[in-house]
Structure formats: C-alpha cells, structure tokens
C-alpha cells in the first residue's frame, strides 16, 4: 500500500500498487506514519509532508461547504454480478429435522405481490445457517456472475439480514416478555 500526494497537494491518495486508489485523504487530516499500521509488508509512504492535525479542528459548517460526495475513486473489486431477479423473504416456518424452511417472498419490483415457497438449508451459505429462524429476513438473488476472465455463470444467492448485537438482545427480551404475557393470559385468564 502506498500514500501519494496529488498534484495540487490538497489531498493524499491511498492505494495498492496492484489496484486503483482506494481512498482519498484530505491533507489537513494529519496522517501520521506512527499511527498507521499495515498488514502488507511492502507498505510505504511516498510522501511525508503532511499538515498539522490541528487544522482539522474547524467547525463542521466551515469544513464541508462544497464536499464532493461521489466515490471519485472506485476500487476494482474483480468479479461482478448481474442480477436477473431479486426477492426479499421472511421465514414463516422452519423444519430443523428435514433442514428446510418456508418463507413468504416478494419481488423487489412488485413488492405488493407475495408468494410462499420453501428452501433447503443447503441453499444457504454455512455462515448464515445459524440465522435461520422464524421471522428472519433474507434476500434471494438470481443472476449471472461475471468471472475474472469475463465468463458468465448463472447463480442463485441467498443472504440473511444480520441484526446488531443489541438488537438481538432486545429481541430476546421482547420474546421473553411475550412468553410471560402469554403465560399469564393463557393459564390465568381471570387476571
């Protein structure tokens, strides 16, 4: 990885020698060699004339009047995927013995139309199999994968939505409350 100043010296480009630049760093950001660490052993700085970090202490309004919002530097991420169709699904029932689950799916382009279908656990990436539970949200895409050599292969990909840890904890609390509520209302209807 390298860092190079651009011609105007107003920013620095961070890039890999074998890729295009990955990130633009304004020069008033105070990028210090001692603070950065690289996993790539070949890492080097090709410039060290970096402005004082204190320059970065202006108010936000002064800092961002005309900031370019587009990712002007796009990394090359090699393979790509051309989508034919995509659905969002919500699991309605899971049979862990048979390793299948049923779900309501909606086409992204026609969100008002809902269909029910089932999937095998084998259709899912191993890393996502622990996310299979009733109510889980997933995205199912069918399309062409464009390989590095430019070839195409038709693939189906199912990816599960992952909730933040605090959200999962909250969900557990909510489930517990729901169970307790049920217990009181079902077994003790007079209360």
């Amino acid at each position, binding site marked *: *990885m390298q860092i190079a100043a651009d011609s105007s010296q107003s920013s620095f480009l*961070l890039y*890999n020698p074998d890729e*295009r630049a*990955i*990130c*633009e*760093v*304004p020069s008033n*950001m*105070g*990028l*210090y060699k001692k*603070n*950065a*660490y*690289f*996993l*790539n052993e070949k890492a080097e700085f090709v410039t060290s004339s970096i402005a004082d970090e204190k320059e*970065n202490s202006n108010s*936000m*309004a002064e*800092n*961002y009047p005309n*900031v370019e*919002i*587009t*990712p002007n530097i*796009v*990394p*090359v*991420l090699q*393979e*790509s*995927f*051309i*989508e034919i169709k*995509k659905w*969002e699904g919500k699991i309605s029932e899971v049979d862990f013995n048979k390793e299948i689950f049923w779900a309501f799916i909606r086409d*992204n382009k026609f*969100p008002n139309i809902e269909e029910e279908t089932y999937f095998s656990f084998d259709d899912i990436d*191993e*890393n*996502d199999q622990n996310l299979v539970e009733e109510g889980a949200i997933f*995205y199912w*895409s069918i*399309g062409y994968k*464009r390989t590095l050599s*430019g070839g195409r292969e038709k693939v189906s*990909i199912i*990816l599960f*939505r*992952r*909730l*933040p*840890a*605090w*959200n*999962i904890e909250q969900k557990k609390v909510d489930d517990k409350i729901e169970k307790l509520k049920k217990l009181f209302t079902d077994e003790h209807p007079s209360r």
Partner: protein
Amino acid sequence: MSLPKLEVDGLSIVFIGTFNPSIFQPQWLVAQGLISQSEASENENQIQIISPQVSSFKLTMGAISVTPQRFQIIANKSPYFEKVRDLVISIFGILQHTPIIQMGINWDRHYKFSTEELWHEFGHKLAPKEPWKNILQNPGLSSLRIQGKRTDDNTGLILVTIEPSKGYSIQYGAYLQINNHFDIQHLLKENSSLGCAPILELLKKNWFESQNLRDKISKEIMGV
C-alpha cells in the same frame, strides 16, 4: 441499434460528517453482531489500513473506507446491496450521535457495446464532436457530468456521470454513475444533537426510489 450489455452493477453509500476511523474495523463489526466471525476471518488479509486518520478494509459484501470527514462503502455485487444498506443503518444505529450532513446513494454501472462503432456512436450522441472538430484532433468523450435538481422535497441534487469504462477488462465499455445526493446541513445547523438519525431516515425512505431513479436513467441513457 444493438443495445449494450450490463457487465458490472455497483453501489456505494457515501456519508459526509464527522467520524472516528479507528472504530471501523472488522472485529468491531463482529463484536456488534453485524458480520460473522467467519466473514471477518475470511477477509483478514483484506485490511488495508486501520488508524485514527483512515480506516480501509474489504468484506465479502464490499469495501469500507473511513476518514474523519467521510465514510464510504462500495459493493459491486447486487445480491449484497441490501446487506450493505442494512450494515450502514446498523453501524450508525449504534453510532447514533455521529453527525452526518450529506449522503450519496451512488449507482455505478459498466456496460459493454458489441462493436467499436456502436461505442463511438453512443459517445457522439451524448457529446456531439462537431464543435470540437476544428479545435482538437480526433476528439472523444472522456467524461460527461450532467447535474439536475431533485424532484422530491429533499435538498440535494442528482448528478449523472458518463465515461469510458476503466478498471474492468471491458472492451468498448461505458461507465454510468448516478449520484443521488442528499444534503441536510441546514437541519444539523439548527439542531446539532440530531446526529445521524435524519440521514438514516433518508436512506431508508429513499432506497427504493433511488433504485427506480437508477433504472429510469439507465433505460433513458443506455437503453437498458
């Protein structure tokens, strides 16, 4: 006229605000339950830099780069677009006090024309060469940017960029970028304690509209 083929379909979400880059690292995402440990481990050698001034690493779903003023995540595989959106919403749902004043929902597409003639024809259609013929030798379209007003109630703009395709081995390729730009500086000036809630709300509300806009512009400009 034979239509070009879509070869690469990409998305990037860019935030402008005040960030602490060193927070952003795969293990922090694992600790928050936003990615799995196996995803972090699989991409361990994809960490490019983590420092107080800049953080940059790749995950299976995309590449994240953060500086004190900018957060961006880039994905070039459409199955991951929703995962990327969810990840961004989850990250800043946790870092809810992060002040974010601008957002770009950007769509990046690369198309392939079947012949050189069709590729030139496309460039000539968007940028006629007549005015340049007596000034430049063999003029060609290098980059074209057209900006338009938003048609909704939000502040910001729509910026469309067309260039010859670079970075991917696409012969006779054209690159189309649609920058759906939102600016809420006025809101945060009035109430700086809003953090990133207004921008996240805009991202959620405009997700489908932004895709519709992408499809409409792609259809009008590229024909597909």
